């Protein structure tokens, strides 16, 4: 059982949760994730450790409410307990002084990006950040990212903040300006990572992506998370989650992510009905 110390909405449908987990705070390295089980009958949800405070014994998770499990987790209150957390999982990011690192965060992907970017900065890299979102309200960790960045750009699909367009437009712009780029780090929806990787491949820029395949155990014993990387099957939970973006079969990843779509919708519908029953006056959870 893990105590929830704080829970807060930091953007529409995006929650930040601070959890009392001293051992995990001590052992975690940038790039690693945990599996969270919300309730006894809950599934194991992979979430990146977005931040930690080893002195206070805390870890921070930032998650988007996209389906039953994350919505239910978002309903938890400070003072309550999560059923279980296991970690830290996955290989830590390889961090060194590469020179100039472009950090691209799409949507909630900024949460896993932040601890890596922070470490990259500490290693002396020149950090150029590009954050993308659908509109200005959906950005998270803007200030935190800006603080550690040497250059900071934003793009929105609707033009309400920063460049009107996609993160790849801003990246193209950077490349065109002739800036020397040593590494591109992209974390976000699979489709975004795919197009970033396609673009950087043209210019031969080393590109690292962090994959969010469907997982069950997160410890390498089931293979649910498998992806093709350079034509070889890899397990994201133990071989990753970071891979060379130029080698990943993103189309396969996206198909696999949609494997349970119908069942996920069924579970979500059931949850929303149950929530409606609890709050007959059309409470704020009816989405």
């Amino acid at each position, binding site marked *: 059982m893990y105590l929830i110390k704080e829970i807060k909405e930091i953007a529409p449908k995006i929650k930040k949760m601070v959890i009392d987990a001293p051992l995990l705070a001590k052992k975690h390295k940038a790039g690693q994730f945990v599996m969270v089980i919300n309730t006894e*009958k809950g599934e194991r949800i992979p979430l990146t450790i977005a931040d930690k405070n080893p002195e206070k014994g805390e870890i921070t998770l930032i998650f988007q409410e996209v389906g039953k499990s994350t919505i239910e987790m978002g309903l938890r209150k400070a003072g309550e307990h999560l059923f279980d957390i296991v*970690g830290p999982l996955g290989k830590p990011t390889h961090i060194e002084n590469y020179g100039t690192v472009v950090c691209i965060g799409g949507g909630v992907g900024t949460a896993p990006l932040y601890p890596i970017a922070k470490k990259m900065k500490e290693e002396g890299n020149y950090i150029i950040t590009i954050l993308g979102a659908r509109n200005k309200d959906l950005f998270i960790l803007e200030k935190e990212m800006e603080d550690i960045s040497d250059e900071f750009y934003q793009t929105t699909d609707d033009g309400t903040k920063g460049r009107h367009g996609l993160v790849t437009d801003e990246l193209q712009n950077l490349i065109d300006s002739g800036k020397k780029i040593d590494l591109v780090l992209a974390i976000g929806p699979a489709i975004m990572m795919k197009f970033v990787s396609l673009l950087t491949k043209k210019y031969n820029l080393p590109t690292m992506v962090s994959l969010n395949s469907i997982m069950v*155990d997160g*410890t390498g*014993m089931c*293979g649910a998370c498998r992806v093709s990387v350079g034509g070889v099957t890899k397990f994201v939970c133990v071989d990753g989650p970071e891979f060379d973006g130029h080698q990943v079969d993103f189309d*396969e990843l996206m198909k696999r992510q949609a494997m349970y779509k119908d069942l996920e919708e069924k*579970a979500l519908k059931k949850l929303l009905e149950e929530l409606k029953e609890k709050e007959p006056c059309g409470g704020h959870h009816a989405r």
Partner: protein
Amino acid sequence: MPDKKWIPQPKKPRTPIPEQKPEERRRNFKEVALGYTPELAIEEAYRCLQCKTPTCIDGCPVGIDIPGFIRDIGEGRFEDAYYTLKKYNSLPAVCGRVCPQEDQCEEVCILGKKFKPVAIGRLERFAADWFMESGKTEDFKLEPPTGKKVAIIGSGPSGLTCAGELAKKGHKVVIFEALHKPGGVLVYGIPEFRLPKKIVEIEVENLRKMGVEIKTSAIIGKLFTIDELLEEEGFDAVFIGTGAGLPYFMGIKGENLNGVYSANEFLTRVNLMKAYMFPEADTPVKIGKKVAVIGGGNTAMDAIRTALRLGAEEAYIVYRRSEAELPAREEEIHHAKEEGVIFQLLTNPVEILGDENGWVRALKCVKMKLGEPDDSGRRRPIPIEGSEFEFPVDTVILAIGQGPNPLIQETQPDIEVKKWGIIKIDESGKTSKKGVFAGGDIVTGGATVILAMGQGKKAAQTIDKYLQSGEW
């Protein structure tokens, strides 16, 4: 002590065990075999000849005094039977259900030469169940605390057994288990209809009563390394019982299509995560109308029978050798057939074919014939040229074997490993690293519950000696 004269009745037919009817059980998760009543158990016990030189004992990997416990049952001393078993086997309720008796004790039972062997497994199960149901509390006989601390990595049968033996010797034992529930394959792999989870829970609870501490969701290699356990966390010895949990894939085209599972994933979703209760439980599982399981072992039988229970309309086992080579327990094969599983033998998949949306639509297979025996002594399957055919299915489950999880070996390179990352031990259970011992599937590759337990017990004896003498 035996009081009456034992008059065996070997000619009586082997006493059948009451079972759920195939038509009913193929759609529910309740246990298939219901167990002997005391009357049936006594009847079966009296078939035993009480041999002077009992061959059955040689067939048992842990050398249980088989005629001894059978006599206890025959004479109605069921509690004695239980304690006789416990002297050798710490999990008789489990082994009575899952041991491949037909290849062990029952294979060499003298009676089997002329008649059917004594139903040793069923009697073992009876004695264990009788004790559990009697509500009696077990007398553990713990020795006084020694002040020594042992870490056990993994809570499968090897780890549980090692923990129990060391606790009896008075050592402080802490089990670290990666998953959120203890039991290893017994909880995430073997389904409820073959091994009720309640039994594993009772055994784990017994360990807790003996003072064993169990830390779940604790992955060694991630949370702590073995060096940290020994140097910083105050453990005097470590036992590695991490099993063979890494699923193998075949390396054929189409394995990453939607609708393809490893047996481990499929069984973990259903058993550990309770996907059969979806959406009451959150973890989903996809099951189509036509399900094919590739492989012929216990894992394959468990997967296909689970698929049936989740509503599959057609259920196939696809296996590249013939019926005689099927590695699964005889009883499981028999049960699977009764439940309507169709065996596509001498058939090997060469590709999994998908539709335009990335879902499985068929298996491309080739027919096989048997050639000369290979290293395993089984006849080698050889593809028949030009025999390729398509076999329409919508779910494929791969049950072609598992290897050791590489995590420990990666983070502790000073522990010597053999081929495929199997940890090397000497005959007493020691690894190449001082203070570190290992047993179970991590040292044998996928084997059996009883072998894992036997090694857990052996290692416990070596650990105890090491803790007392400090000599490596």
